[in-house]
């Protein structure tokens, strides 16, 4: 990547103590922030603040006050508490004496301040983005990212291309997490019993309090941490233990992956983390594992798995057993829908069928038995190329069985490898919380420090965590948002965003990954976790940067440290720091024990909890991009629902949008029903994370208190993922769920009587591998219609000339799960507004790229195919000739260009677009942004006003950037003036973990996109209209087991 040298130079700068993070230009926004910070000092009002007070009064010009209105919460400008005011008066004289010396008595040393752009570093050119390696943290694991920043303002997150896990891609959440940084809802002032106080008020009271805890070695000091594997934090924790040897540490996340480690422990006798290598796996059998969507390794799974979905290579086969239709299930060749509890039975049956000793076959229905037998035969045939894996929702025994089967097949070491667990120190599931709860009940907790994400909201309801907290005299909580725990805690300290502070952590394979700040904290009041840890050590103030650097200095020694450090920070991780593979064996021997530990399967309606595909376990509740990203299968936005299969819905006599009461263990919860095809019968799935109160999103529907319902209110310690015993009571209420796509399938909806007239439209095409290979000609016949152009009207010869490239795209349907990462990437890159639930309900979502999901087959056992589609850039575009003002025209490079400032908004282009990919600004969606939200805008892309049409541009700004770079190089005598293949990567392409999207020059037959266009699988959507789209889709190939699926008559598998 051409930006690397820049990053290198900058990080050399960054590594010097005089300059902290990315230097920042003092443009209007920064001046504003700078002054904002100075003003915010008032609320801190700690010792020696008078120096700043006089300056800040000068800065509070009317323009400034106007421009920052609404940025600070009510109360942020309240005078400091009484104690501090007295301190202030006491110190007034001393401060005055210091004034003018230039040593600001800020809580942050002055050398950590931003550097003004009046002294521009040599490597920087305004308007040219910089890329910095950093990392985000998800449930304790680091995901390596590369952040694009303009003049010190981070605007886009990409995967770190060199990191072994990320490899340049990201998941949906990480794409959107930039918005958390700029969120207007971020907490920004320290709170004491829900009253704004200065941070120093907290330190002044808390540090002496800690001193008083030293007496008994901190026996009454407890920590409830978010799981992490950060070496520097662990170092600090170790030192805290030295000061408070009796302090106790707990850990909690509501989306714990503990069962993976425990499962390996059950199988191999010691806790291990499994790592699956799908590039090796020919047959994959997944037991409720949503491995392409969830978990810290999903990005790598997507890449490896989808690379094996090409009929020109060795095609893999996926068996998926699950209760809820998951994105992984979308790509499954065979999907068995069973209740979550029955997954264990299937696992046992498979183990027996594969021949794991000591496992007896449970009784299954004939149909299921046939399915399991076929899969077992397939797995046995695959041998060491077969793998069985279980999901984090399944108990450890199922994981142990999965490992036993893989071991039986010989796959250990090939398709699955084991390492030491990354999150090894504490339990992260309910058991850890249980220990803490007992301690609180016993009155053994005086001081509790919480960095775990919102346990009051997320902890199992039977724990009564909110009540427990009341029994603790001193609770300290730190978080990005003022959530339920913040309100319940004695002290709340707003946290820094990952892009605001230094840190380190391990990614899932153990690679030590560094978090590098891209910007100084947007608010003075926020503190990073290391800074808070430092309070427990009674040390003088050290910044997160110093803490991190000192840690690694101590860890690796001073010799050559600077060079090492610079490479780490520049790359974003320590190379070869991944945990080594561990020999693991004995799983088959432990299989019998695993079977004995399988929970007994209870009958009755099952309640399933699922971490939301949109907002995680609730930590992204305030993220509008994620709230508005459609749930991959249901396409619901801004809500969660009680998902139920059509058959069970019929039995319960409910239909979509009916509100039901979910009654479980005496607790009642109202939820709207959504009927999802292929959901397991006798099971209801609810997504966690919704229904939070307090700081919640401003784009929720007017009048509603929150978004969705809090499914966590039914979650119990012994049933965090699923349990039987749910009762459903119907109510007379209804609630309208909002979807971005209401059509189910490609079949035309007509009444029964007219069914013969209905047909399945050839839109998202699928074929089976066998038919594709054996009878390609026949299969190709319907395809020919979609690929060839037979018309009396010959297409105009493309305008070509020297140096003119023709851009095009290929989208492989066979690689797409519909995870939305590309959608969010497109939104962030192109400043696409979020419009809110109400506008989506009116059909006005603005996303340029959308995921069309179509079900096919029987309603009960439907399959799904996902088709990503944005503007296809027709060579003969129907939108162009109808625009009365020439606002949408064709570029000589084949782009269908939208001229925003010429558009008058007749919407004729959108009406005439057969792909319906154009989006219209019906209202002024881009207005009303807070100053911080405005900072998130990509300066290379126009922010559209009301009344204007917009659509995918093929990331024209990226093409132009690549063109400038190429021409500069060509002018310097390096290479041709044609942009080389791969130099332009669209935002969607870059984000896609499975590389389903390829972009490039279609005029050059050697480019990747040209080769994909030439592939037999490629077709033009709606080819018969003669629009000649530049984006072509590739037929999805499925690889069903012939033993399970009698070969369909050729041709009929085209939908």
């Amino acid at each position, binding site marked *: 990547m051409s930006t690397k040298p820049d990053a290198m130079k900058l990080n050399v700068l960054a590594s010097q103590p005089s300059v902290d993070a990315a230097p920042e230009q003092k443009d209007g926004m920064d001046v504003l922030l700078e002054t904002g910070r100075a003003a915010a000092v008032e609320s801190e009002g700690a010792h020696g603040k008078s120096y700043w007070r006089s300056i800040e009064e000068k800065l509070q010009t009317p323009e400034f006050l106007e421009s920052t209105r609404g940025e600070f919460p009510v109360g942020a400008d309240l005078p400091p508490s009484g104690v501090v005011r007295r301190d202030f008066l006491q110190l007034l004289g001393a401060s005055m004496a210091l004034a003018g010396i230039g040593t600001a008595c800020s809580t942050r040393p002055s050398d950590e301040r931003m550097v003004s752009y009046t002294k521009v570093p040599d490597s920087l050119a305004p308007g040219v983005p910089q890329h910095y390696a950093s990392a985000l943290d998800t449930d304790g694991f680091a995901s390596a990212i590369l952040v694009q920043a303009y003049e010190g303002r981070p605007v886009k997150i990409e995967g770190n291309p060199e990191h072994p896990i990320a490899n340049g891609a990201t998941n949906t959440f990480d794409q959107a997490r930039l918005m958390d940084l700029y969120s207007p809802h971020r907490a920004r002032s320290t709170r004491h019993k829900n009253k704004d106080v200065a941070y120093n008020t907290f330190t002044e009271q808390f540090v002496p309090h800690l001193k008083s805890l030293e007496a008994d070695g901190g026996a009454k000091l407890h920590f409830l941490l978010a799981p992490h594997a950060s070496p520097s934090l662990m170092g600090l924790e170790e030192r805290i233990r030295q000061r408070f040897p009796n302090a106790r540490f707990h850990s909690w996340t509501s989306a714990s992956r503990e069962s993976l480690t425990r499962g390996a422990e059950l199988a191999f006798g010691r806790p291990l983390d499994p790592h699956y290598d799908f590039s090796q796996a020919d047959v994959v059998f997944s037991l409720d594992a949503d491995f392409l969507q969830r978990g810290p390794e999903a990005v790598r799974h997507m890449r490896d798995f989808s690379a094996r979905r090409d009929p020109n290579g060795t095609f893999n086969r996926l068996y998926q057993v699950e209760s809820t239709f998951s994105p992984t299930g979308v790509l499954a060749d065979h999907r068995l829908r069973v209740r979550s509890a029955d997954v264990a039975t299937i696992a046992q049956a498979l183990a027996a069928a594969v021949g794991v000793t000591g496992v007896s076959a449970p009784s299954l229905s004939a149909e299921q038995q046939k399915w399991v037998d076929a899969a077992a035969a397939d797995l046995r045939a695959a041998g060491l190329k077969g793998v069985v894996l279980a999901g984090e929702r399944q108990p450890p025994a199922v994981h142990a069985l999965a490992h036993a089967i893989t071991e039986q097949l010989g796959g250990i070491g090939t398709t699955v490898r084991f390492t030491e667990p990354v999150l090894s120190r504490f339990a992260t599931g309910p058991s850890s919380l249980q220990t803490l709860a007992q301690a609180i009940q016993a009155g053994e907790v005086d001081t509790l420090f919480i960095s775990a994400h919102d346990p009051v909201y997320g902890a199992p309801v039977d724990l009564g965590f909110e009540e427990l907290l009341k029994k603790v005299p001193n609770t300290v909580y730190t978080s990005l948002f003022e959530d339920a725990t913040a309100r319940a805690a004695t002290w709340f300290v707003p946290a820094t965003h990952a892009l605001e502070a230094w840190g380190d952590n391990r990614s899932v394979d153990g690679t030590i990954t560094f978090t590098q700040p891209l910007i100084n904290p947007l608010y003075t009041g926020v503190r990073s976790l290391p800074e808070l840890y430092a309070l427990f050590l009674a040390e003088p103030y050290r910044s997160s940067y110093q803490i991190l650097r000192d840690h690694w200095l101590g860890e690796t020694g001073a010799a050559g440290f600077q060079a090492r450090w610079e490479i780490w920070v520049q790359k974003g991780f320590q190379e070869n720091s991944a945990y080594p593979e561990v020999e693991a064996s004995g799983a088959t021997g432990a299989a019998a024990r695993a079977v004995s530990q399988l929970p007994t399967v209870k009958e009755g309606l099952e309640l399933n909890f699922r971490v939301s595909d949109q907002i995680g376990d609730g930590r992204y509740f305030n993220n509008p991009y994620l709230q508005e990203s459609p749930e991959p299968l249901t396409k619901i936005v801004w809500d969660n629902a009680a998902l139920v299969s059509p058959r069970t819905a019929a039995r319960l006599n409910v239909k979509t949008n009916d509100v039901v009461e979910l009654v479980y263990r005496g607790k009642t919860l109202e939820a709207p029903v959504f009927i999802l095809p292929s959901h397991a019968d006798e099971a209801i799935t609810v997504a966690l994370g919704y229904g939070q109160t307090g700081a919640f999103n401003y784009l929720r529907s007017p009048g509603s208190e929150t978004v969705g319902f809090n499914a966590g209110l039914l979650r119990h310690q012994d049933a965090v993922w699923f349990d039987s015993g749910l009762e459903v009571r119907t109510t007379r209420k209804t609630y309208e769920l909002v979807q971005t796509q209401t059509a189910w399938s490609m079949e035309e909806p*007509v009444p029964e009587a007219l069914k013969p007239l209905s047909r399945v439209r050839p839109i998202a095409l699928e074929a089976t591998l066998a038919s594709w290979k054996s009878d390609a000609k026949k299969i190709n016949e319907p395809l020919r219609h979609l690929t060839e152009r037979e018309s009396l009207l010959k297409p105009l010869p493309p305008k070509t000339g020297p140096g003119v490239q023709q851009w095009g795209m290929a989208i492989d349907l066979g690689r797409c799960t519909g995870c939305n990462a590309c959608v969010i990437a497109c939104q962030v890159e192109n400043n696409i507004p979020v419009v809110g639930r109400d506008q989506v309900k009116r059909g006005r979502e603005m996303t340029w790229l959308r995921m069309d999901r179509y079900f096919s087959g029987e309603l009960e056992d439907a399959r799904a195919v996902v088709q990503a589609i944005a503007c296809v850039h027709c060579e003969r575009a129907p939108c162009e000739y109808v625009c009365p003002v020439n606002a949408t025209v064709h570029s000589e490079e084949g782009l269908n260009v939208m001229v925003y400032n010429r558009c008058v908004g007749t919407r004729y282009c959108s009406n005439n677009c057969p792909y319906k990919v154009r989006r219209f600004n019906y209202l002024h969606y881009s207005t009303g942004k807070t100053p911080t939200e405005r900072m998130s805008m990509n300066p290379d892309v126009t922010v559209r006003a009301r009344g204007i049409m917009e659509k995918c541009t093929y990331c024209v700004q990226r093409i132009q950037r690549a063109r400038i770079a190429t021409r500069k190089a060509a002018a310097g005598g390096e290479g041709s003036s044609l942009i080389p293949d791969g130099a332009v990567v669209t935002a969607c392409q870059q984000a896609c973990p499975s590389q389903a999207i390829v972009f490039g020059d279609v005029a050059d037959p050697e480019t990747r996109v040209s080769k994909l266009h030439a592939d037999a699988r490629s077709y033009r959507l709606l080819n018969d209209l003669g629009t000649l789209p530049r984006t072509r889709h590739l037929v999805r190939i499925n690889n069903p087991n012939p033993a399970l699926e009698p070969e369909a008559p050729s041709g009929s598998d085209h939908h």
Partner: protein
Amino acid sequence: MAETTDIVLDPLEPRHLVPPHDDDKSLNEKLFAFMWAPPSKAWLALLGLALALLGLLVVSIGYTLYEGIGVWGNNQPVGWAFDIINFVWWVGIGHAGTLISAILLLFQQKWRTSINRAAEAMTIFAVCCAGIFPLLHTGRPWFAFWLFPYPSTLGVWPQFRSPLVWDVFAISTYLTVSALFWFVGLVPDLAALRDSSKTKLQRRIYGIFSLGWRSSGRHWHNYKIAYLLLAGLSTPLVLSVHTIVSFDFATGLIPGWHTTIFPPYFVAGAVFSGFAMVVTLLIPVRKFMGLRDVITDRHLENMNKVILATGLMVSYGYMMEHFVAWYSANTNEAFVFINRAVGPYAGVYWLMIACNVITPNIFWFKKARTSVPIMWVASILVNIGMWCERFIIIVTSLHRDFLPSSWGMYSPTVWDWGIYVGTIGLFSTLFLLFLKFLPAVAVSEVKEMQWEIKHAAHVAHDEAAHEAN
């Protein structure tokens, strides 16, 4: 001079169109009576209602401009809805006036005389209402002038391949020619008004607009030529306007729009709805203004015949659309028609069929053709049906097109209705003011016809006397 008699009396139906007893003075008094009389309570009440609706229009437009057209129900995929439905509906209504004036004039259909003025006025007001929508429906109406070809500093011209640009020309030409035609026809009557004015102000105002008309032979000569020329100019416009409006759809590739039958079918529909609107308006007008002698049952019956004829043409259009959808084997097209009939908007579709296909057939019966209450209800039904037709063409074609993933539903908001009902208010206000301040009947033409009748009678009398001698 049997020829003259033939003009007045249809040989197949030898009845007088207008009872031959009025002289010029009594005609003046009779036809201007409504204008010179103080405003009646009924008129004031109606004007008050119309102004209230006009106020609604102003508020709705104001709010739309303030917030953006997002206050309407339009969405993706239904980019056009009430805005364009109402536009096409009003333009269609605006067809009858010119057709009656110009084409019937050229065909020397004498029965047009009593109704042409009101119909022309209706045309102009309807086109005014229609004109609001193309402007307002744009996202940025303040830049809508970019649709006009003018040498701008931007160096950009409109995109002449777009039917919306043709629309701009078609509608503005039609409005200009219709207004001119109407005004030229008004000149002799304005002079008559000037001459019978009661106050100085009235005389001044009518005097200015009567352009110094003194009823000289030369004036009449020039007037007749100008009127005929304008009639000649208007005639192709009657066909062109709705043809071009239909191109907005026919040139698109959306199934349900992309149809070659649209131009004639739109013109027939326009005349159909225009005549229906004339009937709807003239029935109360002739009752309350006491014009039964001038606008006779005979006029109404003739108009009903036109409604029947154009209604059958429209039905044929529907039939062909459905037939071609099937015969073309274009499955997307076929689905649109199935979806119209059984889809979520089936109610509107069947209302359209009931109003446009079934209703006009009652005019096969003379009893229905001549019964004022029946024809009034039928004419209103036809107007509802024609509105439904535009809804069906625009909304049902857009809401489910090629890719099911993008399908959506449209439902109007209160502002959609506000603007629609508001334009009816604008139309009514203009029409009521017209009735009050301008002659609703072409008085000079009625007089001319009276003279022709009298002349024919004289000739007949003289000939009889001569033969007796």
